[in-house]
């Protein structure tokens, strides 16, 4: 459908194109749109119509997944503004951030070795608290001050945090099961 391909994800859900969005508004807009185009609405329709519904519903879900998660939303917003977040290519990081990363990695390794679930849980809360801080910084950098390159750096940092959060979670899971 033309409409979908031309419109950006913010416009699709009738949201202003900015980092700070209202989660409830997004959820509601997504549900309304998903309800319109979900393939189940076309379960008894001919194949071609079902394929179209599948395509539209996929697009709507992609838009929702992109906007729902702060780091994805920021990356997308920057991309719309023509700023590449360079997550695969740019590995330059401030020294203090790298030191903090190193410390976390050591904590993770030690806790994993010692099968210390409490330490892993504590690390997880710490990572999540830092994630929230960086997300707040994104709003300030992108929405308030329009510093897009700074936003790109924050996205790169969040990507690091995402990975270590995942690994910590996996370590907890591995110990539980």
């Amino acid at each position, binding site marked *: 459908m033309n409409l979908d391909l031309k419109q950006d994800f913010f416009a699709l859900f009738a949201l202003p194109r900015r980092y700070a969005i209202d989660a409830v508004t997004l959820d509601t807009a997504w549900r309304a749109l998903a309800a319109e185009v979900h393939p189940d609405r076309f379960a008894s329709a001919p194949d071609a119509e079902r394929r179209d519904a599948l395509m539209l519903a996929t697009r709507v*879900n992609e838009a929702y997944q992109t906007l729902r998660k702060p780091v994805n939303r920021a990356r997308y917003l920057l991309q719309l503004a023509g700023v590449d977040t360079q997550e695969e290519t740019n590995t330059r990081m401030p020294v203090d951030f790298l030191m903090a990363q190193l410390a976390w990695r050591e904590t993770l390794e030690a806790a994993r070795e010692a099968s210390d679930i409490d330490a892993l849980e504590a690390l997880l809360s710490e990572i999540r608290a830092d994630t929230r801080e960086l997300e707040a910084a994104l709003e300030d950098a992108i929405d308030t001050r329009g510093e897009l390159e700074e936003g790109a750096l924050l996205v790169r940092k969040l990507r690091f945090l995402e990975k270590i959060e995942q690994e910590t979670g996996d370590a907890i899971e591995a110990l539980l099961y």
Partner: protein
Amino acid sequence: MALLQIAEPGLSAAPHQHRLAAGIDLGTTNSLVATVRSGSATVLPDSEGRSLLPSVVRYLEDGRVAVGYAAQAEQSHDPHNTIVSAKRFMGRSLADISEAPTLPYRFVDAPGMVGVQTRAGCKSPVEVSAEILKALRARAEASLGGELTGVVITVPAYFDDAQRQATKDAARLAGLSVLRLLNEPTAAAIAYGLDNGAEGTYAVYDLGGGTLDVSILRLTRGVFEVLSTSGDASLGGDDFDHRIYCWLLAESGLSGLSAQDTRLLLTRAREAKEHLTDHSSARITAILADGQAVDLTLTQETFNQITRTLVDKTMLPMRKALRDARIERTDIRGVVMVGGATRIPAIQKAVGDFFDQPPLTNLDPDKVVALGAAIQANVLAGNKAGDDWLLLDVNPLSLGLETMGGLTEKIIPRNTTLPVARAQEFTTFKDGQTAMSIHVLQGERELVADCRSLGRFVLSGIPPMVAGAARIRITFQIDADGLLSVSAREQTTGVEASIQIKPSYGLTDEAISTMLADSLANVQDDIQARKLREAVVDAESLIEATRAALASDGDLLDQSERARVDAALEAAERAAAGEDTRAVNEAAAALSRATDPFAERRMDRNIQRALKGHNIAEL
């Protein structure tokens, strides 16, 4: 692109008569069929008033096939030809079935999916399941007095692509049109949700004969949203029977039993387990083939002791599901219990303790899945156009690709709302490389060897370039049934390759066609007439939809566009009145093409209306 039939609340796009639709719970141990009659879902019993159909199929000496109680009654006497719990083998190879050595079957290790040697030849689990589905279909059609237009079949949420595809293939063999594969826990939540009109976050604990499923669902204003799902595809009530069986062997000092004795003792074990639901002990007696007598008493306490590790094991997927949904135990408003095995008192206690609240058990745990499936089938068949509720399901397992060094790269993480598509770009790593092999995997583990292989395909014809210059975009699409298709495209030249992940377990389309032909040979069914009927029904629904669309949105077309649509409409009507199947299909396709631009504009308009918070009925 074709005309979209947009059904708005309070406005059915194409008014029609009530369509016969049913929900089928194709279970490991028992299967059921249910339908919605005069607004409420009911399980359809057989002629003797029994709701359950044991999922047992026996191939008889005279070439007939017995399904259900008749087959179950003979399973101890004829274990090689009586297939129990075929669902556990769906889409599985022999290597996947760890308990195979303890089972009384003559397995045949076919590529991808195991088969069982019977006197009627080698039978795949798909064929066995199709026999069960045929029996349910016959029951439903006798009871409803007409042909079923569509069914919803439930599968464990944890079923992977091969298992889902195998289920759909079984339905095809049974001559059923599948409106949707529905995850069992979701079906249960639908049954409970609609009964109680509840909002909030719920957990579903579904312990069936062979599988455990745990799902976390959120109900908000008519939307059932699956937040996460987890489970164990090889843990179920049968394992409890097996523990009792092992205990029987140990207590009686038995070993090396014949298939017949094994079956007999497993049956006694199941009876004892069921007896212990509301008794403190169960007496188990059996006479083996050699005359040896078994006479033991199993107490509740011993039973709990020998099955404790199983009960504990069922708690793990629960933790996983909560973690994936990013919620705490205390956020759960209610816990729905599904599956006959949840009658085991130790299970109810463990679940109650875990969530710190007694689980919901007011619907029959054996029937709740079929009831939910029936409700969903009724909606999907279009019998409830005025009801605005929707089911948003997730993919249970992560999807990925093999990368260098036998590692998996995840493309779509588990618990992503369906339908979903993800694209990823790859490049060549050798100068002049013209082909690329793509290996699609499903699972959570990092090593390829630990994941399930869904299929491999080769993208060839890449124009020779220096290493790293080609840009290959691979797109994964998972539809609402949880089935995957993958396509790849070289960006600079547009070379394309795609696969349906169908042949992953060794059953090709051709094999299915052969099986279909075989099974049809025994049925007095006029295929040609049926094809024509189907074509006419499809064409008529398209004609009706076009008319309804023209009535509501005709203003979107200019004069010449309108004339083209009208001409195609007339041609389709003429063809539908005739008896030439091909002509009907061609005219319908032409009509569909003629309405393409119209459909596009209507969808635009419709989306804009939705966004403004209005629906067509209000405008």
